[in-house]
């Protein structure tokens, strides 16, 4: 009877326990890392969104801009100019990487070169593991893992010279560009929010029949405009 219910009554071997424990640690580390990255990104975006306030403050404060569309147009122009200023360096770095890649490929006449390859690219200086090994355990095992095989240990190689330049260029430029993109996004979101808030007209708590004073003022103004000599 017991043999017919292998998935429920399976006993874990020491090897499986070790594997589960390792996986748990990896998952926790990944969680912490992703949470930290997310937190960092959100902090950067909050910090950058404040810049939009600085950009549009004076023209709104001194009432040069008095409507929503005008503010959006002005804010967008300022935002894009600032984005260009922030992102031209990472884009230049990426362009340098691309130029080196084209030069390398044209010299070797090999247009399928992967600059991140673990054989002749940037990957040669990292530890890499292969996740496509053999299966462990027999057919009744609940947990089946692929055997993880160490694929590469860090080493320098002559033919990977281009990868050592192109890889960092792409990585640094890419991360930098993504940060400036997130800043652009944050500023755009704040611009939309501000353009709604600043020119908002609220009728919360307003009762037309209760505000006699306002009506009186309106009537007085209309009378004064109709008969301006009365004031004199």
């Amino acid at each position, binding site marked *: 009877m017991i043999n017919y219910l292998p998935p429920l009554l399976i006993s874990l071997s020491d090897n499986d326990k070790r594997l589960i424990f390792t996986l748990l640690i990896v998952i926790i580390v990944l*969680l*912490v890392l*992703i*949470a930290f*990255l*997310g*937190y960092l*990104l*959100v902090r950067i975006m909050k910090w950058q969104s404040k810049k939009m306030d600085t950009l549009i403050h*004076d*023209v709104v404060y*001194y009432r*040069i*801009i008095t409507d929503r569309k005008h503010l959006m147009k*002005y804010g967008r*122009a*300022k935002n*894009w*100019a600032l*984005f*260009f*200023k922030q*992102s*031209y360096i990472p*884009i230049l770095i990426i362009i340098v990487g691309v130029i080196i890649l084209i030069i390398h490929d044209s010299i070797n006449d090999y247009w399928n070169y992967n600059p991140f390859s673990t054989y002749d690219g940037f990957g040669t200086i990292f530890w890499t593991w292969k996740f496509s090994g053999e299966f462990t355990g027999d057919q009744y095992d609940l947990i089946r893992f692929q055997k993880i095989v160490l694929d590469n240990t860090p080493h320098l190689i002559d033919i990977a010279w281009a990868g050592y330049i192109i890889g960092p260029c792409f990585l640094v430029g890419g991360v930098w*560009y*993504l940060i*400036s*993109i*997130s800043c*652009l*996004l944050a500023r755009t979101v704040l611009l939309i929010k501000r353009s709604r808030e600043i020119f908002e007209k609220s009728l919360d708590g307003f009762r037309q029949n209760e505000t006699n004073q306002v009506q009186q003022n309106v009537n007085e103004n209309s009378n004064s405009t109709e008969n301006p000599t009365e004031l004199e």
Partner: protein
Amino acid sequence: MANFFKNIGKGIGYFFAFPGLIIGIAIYAVFGLLVFIFQFFKLVYLFFTGRTLFSDLKEDIELKALLDKNNTSEEVENVEDNKKEENPLSLYPSDSIVYGAGYSSPIFSDKKEESSNEQNNKPETLENDVQEENSQNIEEDMTPIEREVFLDEEDKEGGEM
């Protein structure tokens, strides 16, 4: 302890929100690249018209003009206020003409000292006058013999001087 669980909750929230955020940013990155290309061509166009991408917009020029106008009107008001304040304070108008508003000449201070000295001397002269008057009264009250003796003594003192 509550903060610890709050941080764990935040971490889990970021963990689930992070992939969405990355996808959003990746989509926006393509849009950003288009914006960059557009800005680049705009920069080239502005370069040939003698401007830059970061030069002032129409609104900024209006704002600067407004602020300049306010500053100049404030300066004029300040100068007028200074002129108004100058007259009641300056005892010697020539000083303010030579040294400018709010500044006093060294002569001004000397004059002040002189005037203070004069004020100090003034009570002394009064005292002398009082003494003279007293001496005249004394002479009137004296008998003829006493008056002769008094005058002789005064003559002696004047001769010694």
